């Protein structure tokens, strides 16, 4: 050993001196001799798994230079024919499994493996390609994972653990089945990955690449300032995010300044961004009039009163209205039903559902003071949401400000005391799930109760012959009570339909609540009974219905069909006129549709048991009544998503005129057109739907198809639920 702890060795015929402990790879590099490698990076611990950096040190076998320490008197040959041959074979073997050109090579042309293969003149590997692929993971909004392109170099694993200390990535499987995995082999989007981007920056191939949002960058406007990655890194919410990753997503986040009174986003509009308030305050509200499209706000004038009396029109009030205290919106707060206005401040994030799942805006947000906000696309929001600091801040804000109203907004929990909610504040867990992820599985032990915070959850049951969708749940809905009340297993599987965030109550807390609040227990037991009975009815119907056309037309899913008996109907259109008459001239039925037996199934809401229309409503204004009929609430913002989702075309959007503030003339109002969704409301203010009541030929009937057609189908009509 040379004095001072240095070692002397010969590399490619050149005498070099390096500090003791230096690897052969570094010794060569420090002296200008480049040794190719794939698995080694200077900022990571060398592991010597790819063996591409092999050198000849005169031993029986070649050695991986990245892990072999330099020794005194060592003679190293980095480019002999033997070494080059070994490297070439290694690269050729790796290339035989590599989808060339991989995503990285296609996008930026710098896949390290393909670059090496080019250097070695490998165009077509001699070895047989793997017959079955290893798949892709598209679950993360910001990083694409292509397992076929992974060479198991472990650079991502070391980046995740050694550099970022996240410990999400690891190895799974053995031999040909070996691969990288997130957490316990979860999809990346569902794992505890914080989207810092380090793995992607570390990856030498196209196995982990930046997704970007399909080539979009936010539009520039006069109030827009581009934000550099350096500026973003200074913000606490981006602390811990890879600078390279932020550079790759340049343009996907901008700073916007809004003047007092300026509209930031409007309800019902489609968008793809979320906003994070840096400074200032914003007012969030629903500006659509709180009314059904048919607005009988009390008859005025003698004739109106007389006609109202003759029509025996009861007050248009829904029995659940007294329970409805909050409107759930896409923000960290809920709006009060009687006064749907609230305020957001610095540190608040809104528009998550629009950004993550492309739902229409649920409310109008206007700058209350001069505001500065970050407007971001999905990939950036994903990074933020996965950032531990930011997540903690959001969760804290939710626990302090929204848990209370969220819980009380659910009619069943309205009677919870402040003390009990306070005791829950730090005990509930806020969990999130990616699209398609299973939240709980039928047959699993029931250990938690869930309250939906964001997104839509599908509840389904597995039966011989397929999956039966039992319900779709949205913000404000809850699940998991049946298993807990019965002290048994889950009776259904719950799956996230999009980006879903839930409040998870432990079984212990749930039981404590049941003991402390017997009235809530009673209500939940009633809900449990109702849900089980409905499921049983649906199942018996599915199992017994023999007619294909009945199923093909979706009639089995309907709770209430408007049928026109074509052997009685004289096509006089009295039903259509009556419907229009009952709804301010806007009919909600069309005398056309599919035929079943000698009936015409009119185009009018079927109040499906499986109401697809409810999925995606940004404000939850289309919902089921306690009696399971689907209704559209007064706060509909007219986005039209329900109409798009209805498979039978039974929801329509109708324009109507409202007076709004004129932005060009302060203090003045101007008429503008707004839309609201309409569907058959079964004329709830009357004892019988007007279409049926007005049919002079006894041809129109509103029926439960499973009962009405039980004779034709040869099935026993389902029993009415027990009280």
């Amino acid at each position: 050993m040379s004095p001072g702890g240095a070692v002397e060795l010969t590399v490619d015929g050149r005498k070099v001196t390096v500090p003791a402990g230096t690897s052969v790879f570094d010794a060569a590099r420090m002296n200008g001799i480049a040794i190719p490698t794939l698995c080694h990076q200077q900022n990571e611990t060398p592991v010597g798994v790819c063996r591409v950096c092999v050198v000849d040190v005169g031993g029986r076998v070649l050695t991986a230079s990245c892990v072999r320490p330099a020794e005194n008197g060592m003679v190293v040959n980095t480019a002999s024919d033997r070494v080059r041959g070994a490297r070439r074979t290694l690269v050729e073997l790796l290339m035989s499994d590599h989808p060339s050109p991989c995503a990285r090579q296609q996008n930026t042309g710098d896949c390290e493996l393909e670059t090496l293969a080019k250097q070695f003149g490998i165009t077509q590997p001699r070895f047989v390609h793997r017959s079955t692929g290893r798949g892709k993971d598209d679950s993360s909004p910001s990083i694409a994972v292509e397992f076929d392109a992974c060479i198991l170099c472990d650079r991502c694993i070391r980046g995740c653990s050694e550099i970022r200390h996240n410990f999400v990535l690891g190895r799974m499987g053995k031999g040909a089945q070996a691969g990288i995995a997130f957490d316990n082999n979860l999809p990346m989007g569902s794992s505890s990955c914080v989207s810092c981007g380090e793995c992607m920056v570390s990856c030498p191939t196209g196995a982990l690449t930046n997704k970007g949002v399909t080539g979009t960058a936010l539009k520039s406007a006069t109030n827009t300032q581009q934000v550099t990655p350096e500026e973003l890194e200074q913000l606490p919410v981006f602390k811990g995010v890879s600078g390279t990753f932020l550079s790759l997503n340049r343009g996907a986040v901008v700073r916007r300044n809004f003047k007092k009174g300026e509209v930031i986003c409007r309800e019902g509009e489609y968008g793809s961004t979320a906003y994070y308030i840096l400074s200032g305050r914003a007012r969030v509200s629903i500006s659509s009039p709180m009314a059904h499209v048919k607005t009988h706000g009390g008859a005025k004038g003698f004739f109106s009163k007389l006609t109202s009396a003759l029509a025996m029109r009861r007050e248009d009030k829904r029995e659940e209205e007294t329970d409805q205290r909050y409107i759930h919106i896409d923000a960290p707060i809920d709006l009060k039903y009687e006064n749907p206005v609230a305020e957001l401040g610095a540190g608040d994030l809104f528009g998550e559902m629009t950004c993550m799942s492309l739902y229409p805006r649920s409310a109008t947000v206007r700058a209350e003071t001069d505001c500065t906000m970050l407007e971001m696309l999905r990939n950036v929001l994903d990074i933020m949401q996965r950032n531990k600091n930011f997540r903690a801040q959001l969760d804290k804000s939710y626990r302090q400000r929204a848990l209370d109203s969220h819980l009380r907004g659910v009619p069943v929990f309205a009677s919870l005391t402040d003390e009990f909610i306070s005791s829950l504040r730090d005990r509930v867990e806020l969990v999130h799930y990616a699209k398609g992820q299973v939240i709980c599985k039928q047959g699993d032990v029931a250990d938690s109760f869930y309250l939906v915070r964001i997104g839509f959850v599908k509840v389904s049951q597995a039966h011989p012959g397929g999956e039966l969708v039992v319900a779709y749940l949205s913000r404000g809905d809850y699940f998991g009570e049946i298993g807990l009340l019965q002290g048994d297993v889950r009776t259904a599987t719950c799956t996230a339909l999009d980006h879903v965030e839930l409040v998870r109550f432990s079984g212990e807390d749930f039981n404590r609540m049941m003991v402390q609040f017997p009235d809530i227990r009673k209500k939940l037991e009633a809900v449990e009974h109702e849900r089980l009975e409905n499921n049983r009815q649906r199942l018996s119907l599915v199992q017994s219905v023999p007619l294909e056309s009945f199923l093909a037309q979706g009639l089995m899913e309907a709770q209430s069909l408007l049928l026109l008996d074509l052997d009685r109907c004289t096509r006089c259109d009295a039903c259509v006129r009556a419907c229009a008459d009952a709804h301010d001239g806007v009919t909600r039925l069309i005398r056309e549709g599919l035929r079943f037996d000698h009936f015409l199934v009119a185009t009018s809401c079927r109040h499906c048991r499986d109401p697809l229309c409810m999925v995606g409503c940004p404000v939850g204004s289309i919902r089921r009544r306690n009696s399971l009929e689907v209704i559209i609430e007064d706060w509909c913002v007219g986005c039209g998503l329900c109409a798009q989702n209805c498979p039978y075309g039974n929801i329509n959007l109708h324009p109507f005129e409202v007076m709004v503030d004129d932005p060009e003339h302060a203090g003045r109002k101007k008429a503008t057109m707004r839309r609201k969704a309409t569907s058959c409301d079964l004329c709830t203010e009357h004892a019988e739907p007007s279409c049926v009541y007005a049919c002079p030929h006894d041809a129109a009937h509103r029926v439960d198809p499973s009962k009405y057609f039980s004779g034709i189908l040869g099935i026993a009509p389902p029993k009415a639920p027990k009280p």
Partner: protein
Amino acid sequence: MLIDKTHKKWLVLSLIILAGATAVYVPYAAKWPHGPSGSSPVGLGFGIAGFAFMIFAALLGARKKVPVWRLGRAQSWMRGHLWLGFLSLPLILFHGGFHFGGPLTTTLMVLLILVVGSGVFGAVLQNYMPNVIRVEVPLETVFEQIDRVRGRLLEEADEFVASASVASGSPLIITTQERGGVIADELPAISEADVMPLQKFYTRDMRPFLEHPGARGHALSESANARAMFQGLRTLLPPALHETVKDLEDICEEERQLRQQVRLHHWLHGWLLFHIPLSLALLLLGAVHAIVALRY
């Protein structure tokens, strides 16, 4: 309205009223000194009852104008219209003692018979025609939309023929979904001469048929004729155009069904053009008769 067993109550009620009226009329007619007369108390009673039934029957039209008003279900009004309207005829006959009287009363009696007759005719039509429409017009649409549907059919037909003409000169790829994949067959290129018979048939026969739905005696308006014509056309065309022929044949079938719907619809509702004005005239003259008779 379909007259079925659900009318049993109304039938029984009507028979009771008729029997009661007959039971009153027969001794009255036998014992009244100068024979039954409209001016006698019993005759006047029959007249008032008969006229009341007529007014009730006429009120159905007014009831339909306010469908949302909760004045009783429309079908109950319709049943009342049918049975009480029908009963007004014997009551009025009892009222006049089966005599038609002077010019006004004779006119009234004729009008009443015509109104009741046309009503019975309408009831019979409403009993059977809905079923006929259902069976004969499976592609039935909303009556008011027929012209629009026709316009769309004509546009579609034009497009089919135009696309066949455009396709000439290039090979036609026909894909069929098979188990496990899609099979694509390449059919030989179509020449302009190949398309000529189609264009000629369309211009000469089919388009006029679609354009003038009111015209009678068109060969394509008979389904057997149409089938033969399209079969003949197929023999003149290469297989690549048979799909187009099928589409055109379907359009003609739909047009035929629309014509049939119009025809049946006119039958189903046409009698009202006779029934309603006569009813109004009857009520008006009946009121004049009542005033004149009571006053003078």
